[in-house]
Each structure stands twice: as C-alpha cells, then as structure tokens.
C-alpha cells in the first residue's frame, strides 16, 4: 500500500502540494460560507417571489419573476395588529429605545471597568464576580418582578407629574425598556471593559494623575479615547441583543406607540390564520434585521480587532 501511496503523493507533490492544500482550504471555507448563507439565501429569494411561486416551486430556486411587491408591502402596507401601515414606523420606536440603552449601558460598563481595574478597592473581585454572574440570570424569571417595579416607578411618575408637572420619563414604556436593557446589559458591558482595561497600562492613569487630571478627566481624556476597539465590540454586542429582544419588548412596550421592531415583526410573522404571506414575512424580517446586519458587516473588521484587544482574555 505504502509503496503505491508514496509515488502517488509525489506526483502531486513538489510545488503543487501547497496548491492542493490551498484549494482544500478555500473549498472548505466556501462550503461553510454556503452553510452560513443558506437561511439568508432562502429568506432573500422567498422575499422576491410571488405567493404562487412559493407554493408551487422549490424553496431554494431563484425567483422566476422577481418582484419588489413583498418588500413594499412589508415596508408600508402590511398589518401589525389592526394598523396596516407596514413596519416602517416601528423602526423609530426601536431606534429611540436601542440607542440610549446601548450608549448608557456601554458608558456605565466603561466606568465600571475603569473603577474595577484602575481604582481598585478591597472586595473589587467580589463586586465584579457578582456583576458578572448577573449575565446568567434567565430573563423569563425576572419578567414579573421587574414589571411590578416598573409599575411602581410609573405610579411614582404620575405622582411626580401631579406635583411638578413633569414625570421624568417614569412610566414611559420606552424609558422602561431602556432601563431594563441597561440593567441586564451591565454585566456584559462591565465584563468587556474590565477585561480590556485590565490590560490597559496603569502607568497612563498614574501619569495623568501626576498631570493633575481628575477621576473623570482621566476617564474622558485618557481611557475613553483609547477604548475604541472594545467600544466597538460592546456596542455591537449590545445593539444586537437589544434590537433583537422580544421578551422584554412584548411585555413592557406592547402598546402601539412604543412597540419596538421585534414585537411588530412578530405580529406580522407569527400568525396562524389565513394564507401566510411568506414573501412579505421574509421581506419584513429582512427589513427588521437590516440595522444589525449592517452593523456586523460594516464593523465586522473592528469586531475581531476589538476582541483581540482584550475582550477575549480571561
């Protein structure tokens, strides 16, 4: 066997052994790319098909007569509950909830990481450990107690409004969602920044102290400007998670004027009567996913770089 095998290997050997190797690597990579792209491909082709074609044809086939109709319908016409104005309006709802939630949780995470690495005090590991473990709490089990507290805050908001004419956002569903996502995002953002700042040279902080910078000046002028990589990672992570959250969104902001994208999408997609308009559903799903997709594609390169910069380290 080996007698035959050796010359056979040599015939492909020499300069081409490397070539064979490269071809193998590239085909494997391409194969996996197909695996990862498949659901996206199915969704994409389906969203351009007519209903007739979906029912009669193969799900993997390209559309025979591509149509933008489903996309237009999903964007501007499809019904979310009893309101039939498409999902476009819910974009803004999600954005005005996601942006503050991401920024606040990231900023707090950065501050926490800064304190936990550069201003250590006795018991800092315990504090960090406790905050980190918080990442693991199943959200289903906090749904009700959290609702109770949000309700009390809301009633306090009403009292405040009666007293001062201003509720400070208490009781507002968007503010509630921002609060919830900040609370349950803190563990992760703190983890990310703490690991990053752990490797961040402490001497810079000392130098800045000698230079007369205060606690916050050091944070703003020294730490933050040098935190870009981890900032990107944290923002991507938080943005995706909060944008995609359905549980909290449906429980705390199901009402029409604050309803985030995922709840609206769920109301479009998750129906069990009538002919399911798969093409519209897929188009709606794609539209709802665009921001997160965009974030990953645009910032993907920085993502790996950011992970390199410290999030990966224990």
């Amino acid at each position, binding site marked *: 066997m080996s007698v035959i095998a050796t010359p056979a290997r040599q015939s492909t050997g020499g300069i081409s052994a490397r070539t064979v190797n490269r071809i193998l690597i590239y085909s494997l990579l391409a194969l996996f790319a197909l695996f990862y792209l498949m659901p996206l491909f199915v969704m994409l082709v389906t969203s351009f098909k007519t209903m007739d074609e979906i029912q009669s044809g193969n799900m993997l086939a390209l559309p025979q007569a591509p149509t933008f109709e489903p996309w237009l319908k999903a964007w501007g016409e499809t019904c979310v509950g009893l309101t039939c104005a498409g999902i476009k309006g819910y974009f803004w709802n999600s954005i005005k909830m996601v942006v503050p939630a991401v920024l606040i949780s990231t900023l707090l995470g950065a501050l926490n990481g800064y304190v936990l690495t550069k201003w250590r005090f006795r018991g800092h590991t315990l504090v960090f450990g406790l905050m980190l473990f918080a990442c693991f709490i199943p959200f289903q089990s906090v749904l009700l107690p959290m609702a109770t507290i949000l309700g009390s805050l809301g009633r306090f908001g009403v009292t405040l409004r009666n007293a001062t004419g201003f509720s400070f956002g208490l009781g507002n569903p968007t503010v509630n969602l921002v609060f919830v996502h900040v609370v349950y995002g803190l563990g992760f953002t703190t983890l990310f920044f703490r690991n990053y700042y752990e490797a961040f040279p402490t001497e810079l902080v000392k130098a800045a*102290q000698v*230079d007369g910078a205060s606690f916050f000046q050091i944070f703003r002028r020294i730490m933050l400007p040098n935190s870009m990589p981890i900032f990107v990672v944290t923002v991507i992570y938080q943005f995706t998670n909060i944008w995609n959250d359905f549980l909290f969104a449906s429980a705390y902001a199901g009402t029409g004027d604050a309803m985030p994208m995922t709840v609206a999408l769920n109301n479009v997609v998750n129906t069990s009567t009538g002919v399911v308009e798969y093409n519209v559903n897929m188009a709606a799903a794609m539209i709802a996913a665009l921001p997160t997709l965009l974030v990953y594609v645009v910032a993907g390169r920085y993502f790996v770089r950011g992970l390199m910069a410290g999030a990966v380290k224990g």
Partner: protein
Amino acid sequence: MAFLEIDGLRKRFGSVEILKGIDLDLEKGGFLVLVGPSGCGKSTLLNTIAGLETITEGEIRVDGRTINDLHPSKRDIAMVFQSYALYPNMTVAGNIAFGMEMRGVPAQERQKAIDKVAKVLQIGHLLQRKPSQLSGGQRQRVAMGRALVRDPKLFLFDEPLSNLDAKLRVDMRIEIKRLHATTGTTIVYVTHDQIEAMTLATKIAVMRDGEVQQFGTPAEIYNNPTNLFVADFMGSPAMNLIPATIGGNGNALSVVLQREAREPISLALADAPTGLSAFHSKPIIFGVRPEALTDPEGAERNASNIATADCHIEVVEPAGSDTFAVTNLGGKAVVARLRADANIQPGTSTPLAFNLTKAVFFDPATENRIL
C-alpha cells in the same frame, strides 16, 4: 532641614506590609536612587511620594511641607514612567502640554513651554507625531519632556531606562545626568540596575523586602556595605563572598580560606575590625571585591595590607580592559580582576594579591557586617 524627608513610612495591603518603616532624606538638588531587586517595594515607595498610592503610617515632607494627603497633581512633582506612559491618543505636543491643560494654563503659554522643552531635548520635529510613531529613545525623550515642562520641585523616575537597548541606555543615562547637572532639580530615581544607581546618584537607598538596607553615598554603599545583601547587590561583577574562618591569635588575627585538595590559605589581617576577635575559630563570610583581588603587579601600591597567596585558576575571561580570572576558594567560585595584559593560563596556579584594606567581614548568622 532636608528638602525631601520621609519618616517612618509604612504601607500595608490588608495584612501584607509592603513598606516597613522607611526613613530617608534628601538635600535640595540631590539625586536619590532607590535600588533593589523586584518586589522590594522601591516602586511602591516612589508611588507614595508621587501620591499615587496612599500610605498607612508615617509622613512625607517636601520643602518642609507635609504632602501625605495631597493629590498627586498638588505635590509639584513630575514623573517619568518605565513604559513612558505616553497618552497614545495625543500627539507629542499634546502629551507634553496635558498637565498644563489640566491646570488651566492658557494655550499660548503652553505652546511656549512646549517649544522650550522641545529645544532642550531636541524633539521639535516630533511634536505632531503620535507616540506609536516614535522609537524607544524618542519616547523616552518625550516622557522626560513631559516631566521637564512642569518645572517641578521634585522629579520622580520609575525605571526609565529599562526598556531601552544597552547603547541607548548609556546615552540616556548621561543625558539624565547632564539634565540634573544643568537644571539642579531634586530627583528620586528607581532602578534595579546598580550601575545606574552608582553612576547617577548622590545618595543611594538599597532596599529589600520593604526595608532600607543601607542609605548613603555611592561610595559608602560600595565600600562599606552594611550587610551581605548590599554587598552582593551592589557592584559588577559582584563582590566575592567567601565562607571562611578566623584564625591566628590575640592581636594577629588571620582569615582562613579552604581550598580544594590543597591546604587552606591563611591571610594575616593587619588592622582587623574590632568585632572580628569574637569570631575566633568561627565561620564568617569574607568579602572581597574582584578589583581588590589582583595579580601582585597590579595591586594597589599604597594599600597598607596586601596578602598574596597561590591560587588555582580555573577560567580566564579576557574582557578587553581587564582580564577576569576565576578560582575556587571556600567552595565558591571567586573572581579576580587582573590587568588586561596579565599573562595567565587556566589550569595553572598563580599568586593573587588580596587587598585586605578593602576586605569586609560578615556574620553568617545575622548577615550583618562585622565592625
């Protein structure tokens, strides 16, 4: 009254005591080097002077004023760090000016100060670069510039040269020395490199395990180490520390060194320290620096007490300016420093001159010098 005074300084982390009562002082314009192996507490001591770490007990005074509780920026100090600690997001100019910016110095004055410092350190062409675009030596200069621009009462250096290659290190060492000479500022300098300590300091504090082992001028430290640790740590090549016993009688004590497969050497001591008589027939550690152990021709002419003994040479290391010879005494490799042209072969026996005026003796139990 000294310019910098440190009294009974203690620092504890929980139950671990890192600084165990430090007392130091430094005259104005002095250059104090804190030297010791890593973990000896020298950097912590520097940080407490800077105000970057709190102290548990004791007092630090600069120019008569207690600064224990002052914020680092209020202590009128400047610090150069081992990693230079240049702010990566700012240009060189921004780095140099950051401290002034924090103090609210107007932009025009800042610019003037930057220009002045840039001239002194010859870094004018680098001002608009980011630290990542600089070489190691350039970063070092910028870090010094950042300290210089503050014109502080006290300069603190935390192992500033340890990240440079050998040649640059020598250059920068001279640069710092010159800077000290021209500006006349008071400097506290941390290093683990005893050559830096010897060359730069006006005062050296040798530290170990949170305690100052010896505090004095470089010459005192070098010639009169108070204990085994200081003797061993300072000097390169290190002092030969040879286990020996004290022989002889009454007024004429001698030190007896064991040799391999030969009868011991006995060196008569002319003016032995008074404490040594108590160690008669007892083991001691005999300390002699390599330059005090030479070929008889190269021995110091006016030394009062030179003893010569035949030694078996094991290794010869010509180093250009000198030749080092290694022999074995008291079970230890002993280095002798001979003239460069000394004609000596490994494997042969040759007479070596012990300059006993420079010799020191230690009690092996306490490790302290016998005086």
